[in-house]
């Protein structure tokens, strides 16, 4: 793995060999900066960088670029998410330059959920390029210091490039190949979809390690603490590409309603312990969806504090 001189804190943590711990923060459905700052407080000092989601689930929110800049101003390190659904290559390149100019040093390249899931299903989507090409585009801008058309960039954006991977989507046999292609395209780090099926993930990581992919890229395992059995049920039924074993739903149902949140956190903590030991896993990406206030407690109990 080559150092990118991106100046990214996440990159420093990973290259120094520390077990990374990243967080996530959805921007508000409005221009509510106070709300965002409140969430930042819970994350500051507890994670290495924070993903700023980009119109997540195709619901309009404050732009991930603005959210990232606000985060930066509050002394946190953003991981600026960008989806291919809403922008063509011109808008992408211009936002990448803007993000870098505002001090953003990490960026996560995604295709994006289809607009039919969001609050403007009647929208026209873009999909000019796909996530694989977005990775390659950011790499070209960073390493060749050129736009897609070959023109030179005056001060190139030196981003630490991230991509996503869902080991649980179909066809399963292809997943490791798709990951390998993302790495070949230029991904420096990967954050996986939330993992619940640990057996399947172990199998997936074995393929990753056998192919040596973990030596070419840092892989952060996605963890989402379940708030209750209802959430687990909902996600298993309605969120595409989620693999939630019946045993987990049963485990949550097995405790009193008031204790289900604690049981969800316990499961997440067990997962984090397992990931610390798992070959090829370089850290954890904690997606505490609208549960940012629990992050300090989870980080504390997971034994990942203080952050380097």
């Amino acid at each position, binding site marked *: 793995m080559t150092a990118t001189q991106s100046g990214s804190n996440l990159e420093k943590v990973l290259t120094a060999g520390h077990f990374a711990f990243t967080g996530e923060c959805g921007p508000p459905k409005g221009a509510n900066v106070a709300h965002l700052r409140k969430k930042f407080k819970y994350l500051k000092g507890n994670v290495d960088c924070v993903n700023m989601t980009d119109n997540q689930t195709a619901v309009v929110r404050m732009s991930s670029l603005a959210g990232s800049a606000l985060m930066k101003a509050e002394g946190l390190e953003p991981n600026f998410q960008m989806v291919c659904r809403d922008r063509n290559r011109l808008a992408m390149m211009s936002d990448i330059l803007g993000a870098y100019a505002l001090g953003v040093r990490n960026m996560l390249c995604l295709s994006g959920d289809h607009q039919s899931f969001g609050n403007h299903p009647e929208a026209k989507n873009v999909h000019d390029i796909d996530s694989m090409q977005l990775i390659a585009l950011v790499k070209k801008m960073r390493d060749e210091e050129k736009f897609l058309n070959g023109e030179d960039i005056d001060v190139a954006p030196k981003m630490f490039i991230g991509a996503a*991977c869902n080991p649980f989507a179909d066809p399963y046999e292809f997943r490791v190949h798709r990951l390998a292609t993302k790495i070949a395209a230029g991904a420096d780090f990967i954050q996986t979809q939330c993992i619940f099926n640990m057996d399947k993930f172990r199998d997936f990581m074995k393929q990753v390690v056998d192919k040596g992919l973990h030596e070419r890229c840092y892989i952060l395992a996605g963890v989402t603490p379940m708030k209750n059995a209802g959430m687990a049920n909902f996600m298993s039924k309605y969120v595409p590409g989620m693999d939630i074993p019946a045993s987990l739903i049963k485990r949550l149902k097995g405790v009193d309603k008031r204790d289900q949140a604690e049981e969800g956190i316990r499961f997440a903590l067990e997962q984090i312990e397992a990931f610390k030991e798992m070959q090829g896993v370089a850290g954890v990406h904690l997606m505490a969806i609208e549960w940012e206030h629990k992050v300090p407690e989870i980080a504390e109990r997971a034994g990942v504090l203080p952050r380097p």
Partner: protein
Amino acid sequence: MIVADRKSLEEILGMVADRDKILILGCKGCVTVCNVGGLKEAEILASTVKIARKKEGRPVKVEHRALERQCDNEYVAQLADSVADYDAVVSMACGVGPQFLSEMYPDQVFFPAVNTTFFGGAVQHGVWEERCAGCGACAIHLFGGLCPIARCAKSLLHGPCGGSSNGICEVHKDTACIWDAIVKKKLETGRLEDLVAIKPFKDWRTARDGGPRRSIREELVKGTI
């Protein structure tokens, strides 16, 4: 071929609400094949409109016929002596038809009776599916002969996305994930390397993004063949 769906009777009635003598004009091309706008459908629509207007107490004169094709001026010209006899003409061709008609007969008003939907084919009797988005630079040979531009909801060139589940697209329960099919075909034929290669950025100028397109066959223009 071009596949189309007929507009609702309500919408069509709304368009011709203030007209007293109309022509329903079918097309013997694609819309006949997909059972939407041929002579038979023109006849059915004509009598349906008549009945509906009679019920409203505002009877209307409706005639119907079908041209060989409405996307060819040679056939559109056949309407020259009768087009002025009507208050309006309702075209049952794809969107191209009423435009050719409007251009040739600027004094008449042409209403579209169908919604042009996609380029596709019949997968079973009565079911048509989209197969091509007319991107102008066909590359399906790279994808096992299947088109991810038209058939993947995100037009991915390196799919499948994280929402693909059991061969079904995340967007609709009744739509196959075309990327699942592409990957399976490549796995079966041992040609996975076609998919892991990073594809060049697509040049969309040959698609709609380059503006209206034109296809010129010089030898035909010059009349050399």
